[in-house]
């Protein structure tokens, strides 16, 4: 005789078995989920709790088990369950309406699956729900405004779906919500002034949608926000003065269509850890008062239309690790004060109108990992102190008016993976010490006035992928040691005065896909090996004494043996 208690146990056991049947790829991971016995409370991922009526499932955690298939409507039969975590599987199908029957549910995480269809309205029936994470699925339709009927919802994460329409305004009239993640959907409409009614919210993220209109004038009233990310939308208008009342640690406004100047008041927001105003249409100068942001670690102003000089006061931002001012219209010199930034990791000043030399003080930024001044009007020589920048992996001085010799000391910056000195007026030889840069992937010295021979030490660049020394006055032979370069894909030496024969050892460079040695004084025969025969004649022309299979070659038609 079945007593009522065990019958209710069987109901939940049967519900779990229905859930299993609806999944696929269960063979190994749900091995112990079987109908022999009633001890489903010991099954993988199942937690039960006892009450007066016996044991009942209170938690189901099957996250990251590579499950496929669908979520069974039987999930609605787990009447006492408080937590469902199915994140990180490959579940498809729709979220069953029956989810709304689980009145005790507090925590629902279906993120990182392949769920499609709408967000069921029935979720709004879950009056105990505090945590709802449907991030990274393929959900469509609109955000149900009925979600506001969930009185205790603290976390709502719907990021990375295909949700459309407007964010329901009523969602903002919620004093309990702490986390609102809507990034990377297709939401439209404007940012409502009502967002500041979210008086308990610390995380507001609508990055990567299609929101339009201005930043609400009352934005400073959102005093509970710690993170405000409205980046990569189509927000227009000016940054309101009122933004200075925010208490945020992260202010991400990048990738919109903001116009006007950077408001001075931002310089008073010392709680800022990250300030990102990049990729907008901001004009005017960089306010010197930003130098007051002495706790800010990341400052991104790149990709605007900013004019005027780089304020020396930025050197007071002692916690700064990222400073990106590239792709603006900045003028004047690089302020030596930036040398005070001991924690600076990345400095990008590329594509401005900066002039004068690189101040020696920059060599004091010993944490520097990336230094990019490409595309300015800078002159002078490379500061010898750069040898102390041992953390540097990326050094780009290209497209300026730098002159003088390439200092032998660059060979001490042993972690470099990119060295680009192209399109300057450097002269003298390529220092043999460049061969010490064993991690170097890209070496671009093209379009300078370099002369002398190609150092044999280039053969030590065992990681190198690209060498470009074109458009210089380099002479001598192609070193046979280049044949040791096992990773090189591109070797560009055209428009120099290199003479002698093409070393047959280059045939050992099995990765070599692009070779250009045109317009030199090479002679002899193009080696008749496979990786040369695939190359176009353009790689070789302009060497009057070189014999190969192209129109105008001294020995055409050339027939390899």
């Amino acid at each position, binding site marked *: 005789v079945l007593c009522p208690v065990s019958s209710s146990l069987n109901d939940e056991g049967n519900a779990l078995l229905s859930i299993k049947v609806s999944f696929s790829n269960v063979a190994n991971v749900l091995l112990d989920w079987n109908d022999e016995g009633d001890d489903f409370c010991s099954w993988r991922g199942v937690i039960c709790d006892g009450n007066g009526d016996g044991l009942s499932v209170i938690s189901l955690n099957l996250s990251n088990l590579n499950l496929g298939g669908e979520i069974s409507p039987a999930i609605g039969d787990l009447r006492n369950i408080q937590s469902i975590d199915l994140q990180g599987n490959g579940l498809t199908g729709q979220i069953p309406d029956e989810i709304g029957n689980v009145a005790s549910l507090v925590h629902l995480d279906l*993120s*990182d699956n392949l769920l499609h269809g709408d967000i069921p309205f029935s979720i709004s029936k879950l009056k105990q729900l505090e945590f709802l994470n449907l*991030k*990274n699925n393929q959900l469509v339709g609109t955000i149900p405004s009925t979600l506001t009927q969930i009185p205790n919802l603290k976390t709502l*994460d719907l*990021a*990375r779906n295909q949700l459309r329409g407007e964010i329901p305004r009523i969602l903002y009239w919620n004093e309990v919500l702490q986390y609102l*993640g809507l*990034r990377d959907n297709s939401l439209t409409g404007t940012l409502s002034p009502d967002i500041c009614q979210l008086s308990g919210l*610390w*995380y507001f*993220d609508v*990055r990567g949608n299609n929101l339009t209109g201005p930043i609400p004038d009352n934005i*400073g009233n959102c005093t509970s926000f*710690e*993170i405000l*990310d409205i980046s990569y939308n189509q927000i227009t208008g000016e940054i309101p*003065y*009122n933004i*200075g*009342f*925010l*208490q*945020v*640690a*992260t202010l*991400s406004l990048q990738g919109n269509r903001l116009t006007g100047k950077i408001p001075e*008041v931002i310089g*008073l*927001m*010392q*709680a*800022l*850890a*990250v300030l990102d105003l990049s990729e907008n249409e901001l004009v005017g100068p960089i306010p010197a008062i930003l130098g007051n942001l002495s*706790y800010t*670690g*990341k400052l991104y102003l790149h990709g605007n239309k900013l004019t005027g000089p780089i304020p020396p006061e930025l050197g007071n931002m002692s916690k700064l690790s*990222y400073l990106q001012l590239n792709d603006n219209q900045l003028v004047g010199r690089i302020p030596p004060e930036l040398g005070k930034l001991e924690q600076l990791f990345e400095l990008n000043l590329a594509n401005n109108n900066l002039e004068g030399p690189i101040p020696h003080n920059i060599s004091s930024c010993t944490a520097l990992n990336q230094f990019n001044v490409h595309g300015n009007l800078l002159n002078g020589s490379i500061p010898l102190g750069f040898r102390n920048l041992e953390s540097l992996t990326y050094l780009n001085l290209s497209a300026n008016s730098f002159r003088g010799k390439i200092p032998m000391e660059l060979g001490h910056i042993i972690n470099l993976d990119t060295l680009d000195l192209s399109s300057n007026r450097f002269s003298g030889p390529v220092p043999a010490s460049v061969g010490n840069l064993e991690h170097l992937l890209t070496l671009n010295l093209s379009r300078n006035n370099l002369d002398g021979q190609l150092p044999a030490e280039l053969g030590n660049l065992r990681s190198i992928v690209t060498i470009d020394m074109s458009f210089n006055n380099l002479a001598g032979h192609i070193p046979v040691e280049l044949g040791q370069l096992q990773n090189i894909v591109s070797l560009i030496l055209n428009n120099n005065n290199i003479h002698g024969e093409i070393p047959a050892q280059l045939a050992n460079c099995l990765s070599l896909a692009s070779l250009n040695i045109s317009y030199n004084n090479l002679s002899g025969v193009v080696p008749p090996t496979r990786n040369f025969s695939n190359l176009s004649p353009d790689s070789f022309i302009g060497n009057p004494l070189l014999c190969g299979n192209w129109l105008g070659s001294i020995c055409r038609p050339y027939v390899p043996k």
Partner: protein
Amino acid sequence: VLEPEKRLAGPGSSPPTCRSKCGRCSPCKPVHVPIQPGLSFPLEYYPEAWRCKCGNNLFMP
């Protein structure tokens, strides 16, 4: 001198002072903590918030 955490009538903000925010643990200092908004593009930075840190423990400011 104003205390850093004291709100002024005007605009502006300050990092938390973290005074007595770490329970009995000391020293209790404000730090930047990356907040992961889920699976993110590798090159994308994470938003950061302030937390109070003592040893390896983080506390709300």
